[in-house]
């Protein structure tokens, strides 16, 4: 087990190194840089001014030197300066992380707390009206784009209540704070909840057909015990995998949700930074997201071991 963890940690470092190279190179392969964009807004390019600015921002250096400079800074906690705001990148990124973390956490919580129980109910009542209704809900969850759902929620909110849950950095009440995050979290988590529900359902159906379930029933175990103690515990493994993957994919959904609900989190910030080719922000943010994804995957792997003792890591 220990050797497995060490191996996984080593793999994590190699993966992160690979990602850092890919991000760095890809960003510079994409045509145009911050200087092009600044001058585009001005409607002309003065070659001398452009060269000066590129030199000032360190963009005229060879790409390898730029990379080493970035990684060297990163290892010392220096993320560089945003080209646009001219503030330290860390100062720009840090305040936005808790906002997105809260939103993502709530979305995942919503996804798991709705998706798993409904999946179990749907499987247990397979073929019933309830099962069909829940399957329709889950299908619609998979089909509705989160930006459209978000807009629909906003429009309904304005039309029904005359107000809308738009982001406020200093909510006055806990209810306001909850509304600010819960509504967009539901919008983005709906798709994820639908997916979780479908995976839970199919996994449960497979487990419920197993011999040991029949044995449990034959031994007189209650339906609740069979479903939740014997079946769900075994059915939940693929669900955890899906939730882990969804956590990684959530950032994609959050980009549109943060835009629609005007939440100043890292997802929207990343898109804006990319639009401006603000390399220090994009590089560090993507690295941060990569670290989160890699760590979440690592945790999921560890959870496997904790939940299913049959899993042995080959040491």
């Amino acid at each position: 087990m220990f050797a497995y963890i060490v191996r996984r940690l080593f793999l994590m470092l190699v993966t992160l190194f690979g990602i850092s190279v890919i991000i760095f190179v890809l960003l510079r392969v994409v045509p145009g840089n911050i200087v092009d964009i600044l001058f585009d807004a001005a409607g002309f390019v003065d070659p001398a001014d452009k060269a000066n600015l590129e030199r000032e921002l360190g963009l005229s250096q060879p790409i390898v030197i730029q990379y080493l400079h970035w990684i060297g800074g990163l290892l010392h906690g220096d993320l560089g300066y945003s080209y646009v705001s001219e503030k330290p990148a860390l100062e720009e990124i840090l305040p936005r992380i808790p906002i997105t973390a809260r939103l993502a956490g709530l979305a995942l919580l919503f996804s798991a707390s709705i998706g798993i129980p409904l999946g179990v109910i749907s499987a247990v009542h397979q073929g019933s009206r309830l099962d069909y209704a829940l399957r329709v809900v889950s299908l619609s969850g998979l089909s509705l784009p989160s930006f459209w759902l978000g807009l629909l929620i906003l429009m309904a909110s304005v039309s029904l209540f005359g107000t809308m849950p738009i982001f406020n950095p200093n909510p006055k009440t806990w209810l306001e704070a909850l509304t600010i995050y819960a509504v967009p979290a539901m919008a983005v988590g709906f798709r994820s909840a639908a997916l979780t529900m479908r995976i839970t359902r199919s996994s449960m159906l497979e487990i419920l057909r197993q011999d040991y379930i029949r044995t449990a029933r034959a031994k007189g175990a209650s339906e609740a015990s069979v479903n939740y103690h014997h079946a769900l515990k075994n059915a939940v493994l693929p669900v955890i995998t899906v939730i882990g993957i969804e956590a990684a994919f959530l950032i994609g959904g959050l980009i549109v949700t943060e835009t629609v609900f005007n939440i100043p989190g890292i997802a929207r910030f990343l898109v804006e930074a990319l639009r401006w080719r603000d390399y220090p922000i994009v590089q560090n943010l993507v690295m941060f997201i990569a670290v989160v994804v890699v760590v979440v995957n690592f945790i999921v792997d560890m959870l496997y071991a904790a939940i299913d003792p049959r899993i042995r890591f080959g040491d």
Partner: protein
Amino acid sequence: MRSVQALAVAVLSVLIISDVSRAAEPKPGGIFRIYHRDSPGSASIHEGATYSLNVPFMPIFNNLVIFDQHIAQNSASTIRPELAESWAWSGDNKTLTFKLRKDVKWHDGKPFTAADVKCTFDMLMGKSQQKFRQNPRKSWYEQVEEVTTNGDYEASFKLKRPQPALLSLLASGYSPVYPCHVSPAEMRTKPVGTGPFKFVEFKANESIKLTKNPDYFKKGLPYLDGIEFTIIPNRSTAILGFVSGKFDMTFPTEVSIPLLKDVKSQAPNAVCVVEPNNVSTNIIINSTAPPFDNLDIRRALALALDRKAFIQIMFEGQGDIGGTMEPAPDGLWAMPKDMLEQIPGYGPDIEKNREEARKLMQKAGYGPDKHLQIKVSTRNIAVYRDPAIILIDQIKSIYIDAELDVVDTAQWFPKIARKDYSLGLNLTGNAVDEPDQSFYENYACGSERNYTNYCNKEIEKLFDQQSEETNVDKRKKLVWEIDKKLQEDVARPIIFHARTGTCWQPYVKNVTIMSNSSYNGYRYEDVWLDK
């Protein structure tokens, strides 16, 4: 009985009058909440070329002179003193001298003096040690020989030749005076001004906050305690925010005509105005390479345009047809209608124009059996893309099959500069309704923003002639002649001039949206909220 009635009428009249006067009495206080369409690249107006910067940051500054903030049509006659108490032209019209106010302080407490004026304009002319990261309006001051000071409260602009337009350029929202003691880098992040509002914070992609300047030199102003801009790039969310009352005003001139209907239906009490914004949608043609190096094909293209159809489709009829200068009545320098209709392609009979265009195409070797294949390049933004698609449809009628080539913003200008296009759809905004700004910037030989490299020395002589002309009527005639010639030369065919909407809640008072520029009307010093 009659005397009782008379008394009642008198009392009622007094009550009504007092009520009206009370309603008109500005109420101090309140935060003016506006949504912003995007996150500006910096806070330095001098380094920007978009009104996304002027709207939130103009309230921080003052100019030497400014267009009257309550007259929608900017003109020389609406220029008012601001940091200057007065101004005077020398007898030879080559020196413009400003007497400055003595009671002005920068937001950090330092006194404002003539040295700040000299610093600002020296930096704009590229003559100072400190440099702007970008200086998009350097060409505005091409005719300024030097800026001199006489003591602390007098500054003079010495010109190479007379240029009456200089005063209008100085009155633009793009011409604030910057402090000498604050570096350009600081001005990009924490601007210091003399204006009615002080900078509080600018959180990229989030918000911009300004607070009242209690030491503003105009006593009793501003009325507002502050202004808050919430950055909402998603237009639907922003409009919903306005409709639900989260915002007091939409971002100026950002509500499209179709959206305006939605706003009015959902917020019937909102005050909405539709004004031209002096932005033309035009075609840029690469005349240095085939096929558009052929004048006949360029002329055919100009003849194929059905401008009314563009306006009908995009603005439900609320747009204007004109030349380079903004059309009348809001534009000051527009060609008269009869003169405009004489220009090929502007005549009302579209079918006749297109018939003529087809003949020119056939002369160039194209016809029903041999279509010309081209690409129409444009930026990947709806206001660019939509007219480009209509253009592609219209030029099919003259044997041109075009494909839309959408270009990322970061690549648009480099592509145009490389001449890597044959036909482009472009938008040109004018900060001031002033021929000098428009002609020199967009059509002068060698100008950086003359994307098509159109160069006609004869017309350039006329540019100088109109620029020096102090008689407005004579100047207008010269401007019309130039504009007509530019259209006939197919230098940069103008398709239409847009109109856009702005809405605010009924309790917002003293907002005026300018009708011939989107860049000059955001000082907000006497805006108040009747709440």
